[in-house]
């Protein structure tokens, strides 16, 4: 709901009072705790800055039409800036370009666009780096054991999914298609799907000892399957996200290590940048890495990490 009543069209002019600043937030979906955190942080930051956030979302992961419609509607409502977690597709670029032509500053959160300069600025996790961190931890935890790797990916073709996947393999020191990779399934980052996939994979790869997971729900699902098969002590599980549930799971020993990212920072920085633009006309630019940290209670020599106590203080969701 809105208290303010801003009829001003989308003009590029600067110097308006911050209290009139309307900011649009477009996430991929509205049902993922990560996006919920983005929304909440954006709203908090906006309140602090005296701005207002209108949050919209696609209907499913990959809903270009939904994101494009959201951008169009936000521009029609006269927002000053749009924060968006863009779908991997280039499908929304035209809409972003139109919005920018209308004088709206567009900032990508969490996921970069392709090309990156389709937006004014990007505040995101370096997902490749996050993947490398996960891979290097798992590799270190295996020690000198011969790796037998299972990959639980997200959605085929997703930008973030690809970065994490490639980063993990780089961290493990493996090539795509290496014989050490014994199995791969897509889970859409869904716990149920991950559990089913892992159950089936374990039938085929009973000797697996290293597991890549696209996110923490996938890791939790996989763990359930691993536990049923009695292989908890055989497999090292790595993950990415840093949600509070995920950190708890690290503490419980469900996940060996997870790479934390910081959605709160992304959203807060984004809101500040729009408010700044509204006040001074200065547009943000470039890619800002909002940081990644390994969380584990079994730190390994040579890999920087924090423990779960620190994790619980900094987690999201």
């Amino acid at each position, binding site marked *: *709901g*809105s208290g303010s*009543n801003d*009829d001003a069209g989308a003009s590029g002019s600067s110097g308006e009072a911050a209290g009139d600043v309307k900011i649009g937030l477009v996430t991929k979906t*509205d*049902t993922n705790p990560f996006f919920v955190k983005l929304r909440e942080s954006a709203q908090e930051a906006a309140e602090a800055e005296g701005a207002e956030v*209108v*949050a*919209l*979302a696609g*209907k*499913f*992961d*990959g*809903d*270009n*039409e939904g994101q*494009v*419609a*959201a951008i*169009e*509607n936000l521009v*029609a*409502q006269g927002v000053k800036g749009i924060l968006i977690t863009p*779908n*991997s*597709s*280039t*499908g*929304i*670029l*035209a*809409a972003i370009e139109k919005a920018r032509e209308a004088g709206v500053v567009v900032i990508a959160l969490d996921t970069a666009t392709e090309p990156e300069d389709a937006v004014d600025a990007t505040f995101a996790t370096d997902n490749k780096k996050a993947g490398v961190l996960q891979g290097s931890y798992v590799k270190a935890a295996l020690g000198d054991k011969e790796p037998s790797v299972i990959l639980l990916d997200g*959605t*085929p*073709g997703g930008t973030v999914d690809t970065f994490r996947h490639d980063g993990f393999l780089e961290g493990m020191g493996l090539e795509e298609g290496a014989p050490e990779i014994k199995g791969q399934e897509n889970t859409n980052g869904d716990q149920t799907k991950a559990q089913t996939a892992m159950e089936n994979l374990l039938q085929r790869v009973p000797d697996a000892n290293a597991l890549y997971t696209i996110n923490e729900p996938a890791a939790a699902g996989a763990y359930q399957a691993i536990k049923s098969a009695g292989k908890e002590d055989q497999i090292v599980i790595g993950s990415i996200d840093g949600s509070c549930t995920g950190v708890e799971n690290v503490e419980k020993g469900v996940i060996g290590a997870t790479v934390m990212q910081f959605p709160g920072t992304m959203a807060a920085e984004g809101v500040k940048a729009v408010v700044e633009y509204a006040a001074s006309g200065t547009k943000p630019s470039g890619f800002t890495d909002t940081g990644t940290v390994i969380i584990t209670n079994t730190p390994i020599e040579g890999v920087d990490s924090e423990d779960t106590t620190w994790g619980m203080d900094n987690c999201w969701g």
Partner: protein
Amino acid sequence: MTSRSTETVPPTALKGARLREFIRQPLLGPLTALLIAVVVFSVATDNFLSTGNLSLLLQQSVVIGILAVGQTLIILTGGIDLSIGAVAILGTLVMAKVGLAYGPVVGLLATVVVCVAAGSINGVLVAVLNLPPFIVTLGTFTVFFAATQLYAGSQTYAAIDGVQTALGESLDLGVFMTTYGVLAMLAVYVVVWYMLTQTATGQHIYAVGGNPQAAALVGIKTRKTLFLVYALAGLIAAVAAWAAMGRIPVADPNAFQQANLETITAVVIGGTSLFGGRGSVFGTLIGMLIVSVLRSGLTAAGVDALYQNIATGILVIAAVTLDQVARRRAA
């Protein structure tokens, strides 16, 4: 054609037939619901009724609006098409990839061929093998979707400007800015309306949906009619694919995943029976507009996405309730 001589013509009942025909197609309920929604949002929000917003609303409805016509045809025969969105997406990828290789016009033609072929596969399975449409199209949905992913290598392909994005071009009607896509959508509605109400094929579609056994006994080629409808839905999906490229100039194998449910919703809110044989394509247009207006109006009112979902769910049920009440009045 043999027919007995007809000296005796009853003086009655040829008058007013047109009007009664219109009212009998029970559009009154959906229309009322649409009007109420428009009025409420105009009063409740500042910018809902702006021409800019209404123009946007129409543009955002084009792809689903076109697909819903194909869905109407299929539902009128007592079937259902869960593959309709997947066929359109396959169409966009063929348009982009073949277009890249052989030029946009060839790409467009290839899209038509592929979409009609996809529709025809459904048609053969339903009409010739006599399988339940729900299972057939669920199966082909899975197949077409996976085939699209494989064909695209899970990549997106940008449109080559020009022919491919023609339906996205703006059109200034003086008071109103719109796109050729919106006109194309309206054209599809008019053509199919004409077919359904003014030609024998249309009457056969209603007959096959209303009572397939009886239709066969009176000598309608039920299989041919069924096949035709599914092939036609494929053709309409090709038009939707073209409009989709105009709207978002990128072929994305993951787009429009909810198209099936959204088109079915538009059809049912528009008063067409899922049991077949009763309904109209203009009902579908209204049904589709009702959902678009709700979405757009709630956004204009600044309602957050989750609450918007709840509101849409409730309002859709309310719209159908209104329709039900109106029909009982009319009876």
